[in-house]
């Protein structure tokens, strides 16, 4: 009941979806549509779980007065302000002015800027680690340099560099990425089969 039934469910649903792919009869298509619809609904609850978890963690931090608990209060304040301005009747739903403004002038700047910090850390990491210590490292460095030089206006050199960069992208790069794709694809299929057959069951957690 606690473990065997879910495993059977995985097998039945997995087998059904595989068969459905090859046998698109009307009955199986109808069932397929229901399943897709229902999964999206289950997904909504699963996503909300993450938000509830964040609220719980922040609340415990405040209650226990843990280190830097004031910031957890800020997190909760931000969350409640958005909920307050977003939901009717106080907020106006998806057209609520303040809800949209907080998105555009708090969320967008911070999220975009946090990722922009990566430019600096990447530059610093490249400076420290990107060295031609061996032939293999030199090849890596050379390929990266060609792609970087492609952006620079180098006059008469621009055309050959663009051509070389184009060749790197569509011959060796393509070959490397294709091999990885095929490897990942086979790995995904093997893992999926292990899940459906009940060999891989760690996703169910422990008893």
């Amino acid at each position, binding site marked *: 009941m606690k*473990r065997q*039934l*879910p*495993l059977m469910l995985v097998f039945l*649903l997995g087998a059904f*979806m*595989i068969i*459905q*792919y*090859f046998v698109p009869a009307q009955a199986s298509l109808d069932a397929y549509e229901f399943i897709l*619809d*229902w999964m999206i*609904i*289950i*997904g909504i609850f*699963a*996503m*909300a*779980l993450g938000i509830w978890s*964040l*609220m719980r963690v922040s609340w415990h931090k405040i209650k226990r007065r843990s280190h830097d608990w004031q*910031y957890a209060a*800020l*997190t909760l304040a931000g*969350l409640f*302000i*958005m909920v307050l301005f*977003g*939901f009717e009747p106080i907020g106006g*739903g998806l057209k609520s002015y303040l809800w949209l403004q*907080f998105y*555009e*002038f*708090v*969320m*967008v700047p911070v999220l*975009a*800027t946090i990722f*922009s910090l990566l*430019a600096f850390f*990447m530059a610093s990491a*490249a400076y420290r680690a990107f060295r031609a210590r061996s032939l293999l490292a030199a090849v890596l460095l050379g390929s*990266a340099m*060609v792609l970087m030089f492609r952006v620079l206006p180098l006059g008469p050199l621009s055309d050959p560099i663009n051509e070389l*960069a*184009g*060749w*790197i992208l569509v*011959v*060796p790069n393509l*070959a490397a990425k294709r*091999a990885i*794709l*095929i*490897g990942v*694809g*086979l790995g*995904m*299929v093997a893992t999926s089969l292990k899940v*459906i057959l009940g060999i891989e069951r760690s996703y169910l957690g422990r008893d």
Partner: protein
Amino acid sequence: METAAFDVEVFLWMTLGAAFTLFTLSFLYKDNPLYKIAEHTVVGVSAGYFLVILYYNGLRPNLLNHLFVPETWTPKFDELWYLVPLFLGMAMWTRFSRKWAWVSRYPIACYFGIATGVAIPNEMKNRVVEQINGTVLRVGFEFSQSGFLGVPQGIWDIVLVILVLASLVYFFFSKEHKGWFGGIAKVGIYTLMIGFGASFGYTVMARVSLFIQRMQYLRDWLDMI
């Protein structure tokens, strides 16, 4: 008059955005309270934003409207099968209870069963069959057409096929990488390094772009002053 008032409002909002941008950038010097304020605020604001989106762009149109009459909220009885995903979704929430956490295995099992069942034929087709197809059938082996360095395109097509095979050999660990097999694997690892180098070259542009965009925002804000 109305235009001036509007500008002040936009300017104040943009100032808030600029302040949060600068708070976040201050992390480059070192971790500090201003950065932490920006970071923790955005975690809460993002969660709140997403909760509203989930309700208006998920729960309401895809579930509640099937079970209740919109606006009046009176129950509807013609689509009661929507109670199944409702219960499965709610079962997810039992994860917080030690006693009832096992109930959440049912929706998780549904998700894994369906996701893996969908993945097997589609991923096999997309990542394996189509890629092999692309390597063997899509390349034209066109020798009359000139390619990179004036070499016939057909030659580069053959090189592509060889490099794909060599890279695949590198990932084949059931046979020791020695002798001729090791030689092919070596060609494979060099090919992979060129690929990773190309990714890095693109990544530089990607990361710098993010910073440039923030600077463009600050420029627009300063222009308002």
